[in-house]
C-alpha cells in the first residue's frame, strides 16, 4: 500500500468531476432553473477542470499510458509551471472552484466529487518526510477544519436563499475569497488579518 500513487486516482476523480460539473451546468442552464447562472459558472469551471486534468501525470514507478491526444494539452498546462505541477495548489484550486457550484442542486454533485478529488490531492501533497501517522492526522485535521470553516462561511454568505440580483453576489464573493485566502495562508507575513 505504501507505493500507491493516490494522485493518479485523484486525477481520474477530478476529470470525472469536471464532466459532472459540465453536465449539471448544462441541465441547469437549459432548464432555466432558479439561480441558473451558477449553472453557467459550472460549465466554465467544468471545462477548465477537464482541460487541466486531461493530461495524465507521469508515474514515479512504472510506465504511464498517455490519454489519447493529451500532448496538445500538456504543452499548455506546462506553461503555468509550478502552479499546475504542485498538488497542493491543485487541491486548493479544486476546492475553491467547487464551492460556487454548491449553491445549485443541479451542480452540487460536481461540487462533492471535485471536493473529494481535492481531498485526495491534499493527502498526496503532504511531503513524505512529514508523513508520520500523527503528523498526517494533525495536518489532515487542520486542513479539514479550514475547509469546513470556509464552507460554513460560504453558506453563511448566501444562506441557501435566492439571490435576486447578480450584483448582490459580488460583495459576498469577495468576502468569501478573502476568508479563503486568510484561512489557507495563516501565519504568512502577508496574509490578510481576520
Amino acid at each position: 500500500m505504501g507505493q500507491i500513487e493516490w494522485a493518479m486516482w485523484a486525477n481520474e476523480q477530478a476529470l470525472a468531476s469536471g464532466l459532472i460539473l459540465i453536465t449539471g451546468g448544462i441541465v441547469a442552464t437549459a432548464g432555466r432553473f432558479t439561480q441558473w447562472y451558477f449553472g453557467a459558472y459550472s460549465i466554465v469551471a467544468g471545462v477548465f477542470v477537464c482541460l487541466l486534468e486531461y493530461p495524465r501525470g507521469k508515474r514515479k514507478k512504472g510506465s504511464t499510458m498517455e490519454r489519447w491526444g493529451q500532448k496538445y494539452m500538456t504543452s499548455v498546462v506546462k506553461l503555468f509551471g509550478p502552479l499546475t505541477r504542485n498538488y497542493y495548489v491543485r487541491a486548493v484550486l479544486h476546492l475553491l472552484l467547487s464551492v460556487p457550484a454548491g449553491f445549485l442542486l443541479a451542480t452540487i454533485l460536481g461540487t462533492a466529487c471535485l471536493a473529494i478529488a481535492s481531498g485526495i490531492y491534499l493527502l498526496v501533497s503532504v511531503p513524505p518526510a512529514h508523513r508520520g501517522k500523527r503528523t498526517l492526522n494533525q495536518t489532515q485535521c487542520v486542513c479539514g477544519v479550514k475547509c469546513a470553516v470556509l464552507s460554513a462561511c460560504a453558506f453563511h454568505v448566501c444562506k441557501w436563499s435566492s439571490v435576486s440580483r447578480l450584483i448582490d453576489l459580488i460583495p459576498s464573493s469577495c468576502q468569501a475569497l478573502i476568508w479563503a485566502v486568510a484561512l489557507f495562508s495563516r501565519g504568512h507575513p502577508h496574509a490578510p488579518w481576520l
Partner: protein
Amino acid sequence: MGNWVVNHWFSVLFLAVWLGLNVFLFVDAFLKYETADRYYYTRKILGSTLACARASALCLNFNSMLILLPVCRSLLSFLRGTCSFCSRTLRKQLDHNLTFHKLVAYMICLHTAIHIIAHLFNFDRYSRSRQATDGSLVSILSSLSHDETKGGSWLNPIQFRNMTVEYVTFTSIAGLTGVIMTIALILMVTSATEFIRRSYFEVFWYTHHLFIFYILGLGIHGIGGIVRGQTEESINEGHPHKCAEYFEMWDDHDCRCRRPEFEGQPPESWKWILAPVILYICERILRFYRSQQKVVITKVVMHPSKVLELQMNKRGFSMEVGQYIFVNCPSISPLEWHPFTLTSAPEEDFFSIHIRAAGDWTENLIRAFEQQYSPIPRIEVDGPFGTANEDVFQYEVAVLVGAGIGVTPFASILKSIWYKFQCADHNLKTKKIYFYWICRETGAFSWFNDLLTSLEQEMEELGKVGFLNYRLFLTGWDSNIVGHAALNFDKATDILTGLKQKTSFGRPMWDNEFSTIATSHPKSVVGVFLCGPQTLAKSLRKCCHRYSSLDPRKVQFYFNKENF
C-alpha cells in the same frame, strides 16, 4: 466476418436480450406513467419528466439486480461444473462475466444520469408550482396539505414557499440516499478504470466495497413515498378527466368533485435486489469459511529468477486443471487476497503455486519465506475457481500459448497429461497438443525445464513422441546468445535448456503455425488457449478467425483467453 459470427453468436444474442429487456422496461414504464389516470394530476405539475425518471428507475432496479451476479465466483464455478453437458459455446460465456459486469455498470451510470436529470427538472417544477400564487391548477394541487390529521394526502413534497430544493433534497430520505448512492457510484467508477486497476489494485478493490452503501441506499431510497399518485377511492369519487377542469370549484359543497387525494408508491427496489444480495452474502460467507480451513505447507522451493514455489495441503481441497486460487498472508496484509494459478495436477496429492516477485505483496511474501530461521508464515487459501482451461481435454487438438509467467496454467495441464498417460486413460479426447512458450529471459525457464525433460522421456518410453509438440521462443535474445546457439547447432540438446527441442529466437510467426496446424488436422476442432498480454490475444484471435473454415465439418479454431 462469418467466423466472428460463429464464434460470438451466443454473446451477441445474450447482449441483445439484455439490451432488449432494458429498452422494453424503459418504454413500458414510460408509457405507464405518461398515460395512467393515477398520475394525471402529478403530470400536470411535472410533465413528461415524471415518466422519464420512473422509467430510468425501473431500469436501475433491473440492472442493480444483475450487477452482483457475475461476481459470484463460486456460483459461476458451480454452473460450469453442473453444465458439463452443455455445449462448449454456452460454457464459454461464463468467461466473460467481468465484461458483462462492466457493461451493466455502464448502463447503471447512464440510467443514473437520466434519473438525476429528470428529477432535477421535477424538483424545479415542484418548486415553481409551490411558489405560484395565481390560483392555477398546479398551485392548488401544491397547496394540498401535509397535515397528517387531514389525511396527509399531499402531492407536492415541497411544503412551504420558502423551502429550497436543496433543503428538500438533503432532508428527504430519497434525496439523501440518492446523493450518497451517486457519490459511491462515482467513486467506484473512477477507481475502477483500467489504468488504476492494473497499476494500483488495492485502490480499486477497497473503494469498490462502497457498493455496500449503494445497495443499502437503493433499498431504502423509495421509503418516503415521494412519487405520489391519486388513490383509488379518490379516482372513483371524481375521475380526473371529468374533475380537472372544475378545479376552482373543488371546495364548493355543491360540486360533485372533491379535492383529489394522493398516496405514495411503496418502495419496490428491495424486491429486485433481495435475491442477488442474499446470493452474494452467501458467496462471501463461503469464501470466508473456505479461507479459514487450515492450510499445511509441505514444501517450499526457491527457483532462480525470484520464483517461489509453495506446495500445500488442505482438507477437502479438490481441483481441476487450470484453476486458480486466492491466497492471503495475514502477516503481510490481513485484507489482501491475490489470485494465483495452480501449477500442480489434480492427480497429485498436494497443490502448488509458483509466485513471481511482481509488486509489494509478492516481494514481501518471497522475503518472508526466504528467512531461514523464522517460522513459516501462515497462509490462507480460497478456491479453487474455474476458468477456460478446464475445457482443454474436450478438444481433439489443443494449442496452448503461454507468455512468460502465463505458462503456469499450462504447467498444470501438461502434468495432468503425464499422469493420464501413466494411468493409460483412454477417455482422453485430446489427440495432439501444440505448446508455445514465449519468454524474455533464460533464467525463468529453469523451473519448467524439469517438467518438460520428464515429459520428453515419458513420451519416448510410451512411444508417443508425436503427442506433445512444443516450441520455446526467447524474445529477449542478443547476439551473444544467438552466436553461442549457432556454434552448438549440431548438439542433440539445446544449450540453454537442455531439452531435445531447440529454442527459437524472436516471436512466433502465427500465420505459419496456424496454417500448418490447419493442414495437418483438416477435420478437427482446435482449441486455442492463451495466458498472456492483450496484443497477443488480438493476433491469436485474428488467426483463429482467419484459419477457421466456414464449413462446420472442417477445421474450427476456438479461442479462449485466461483473465483475472
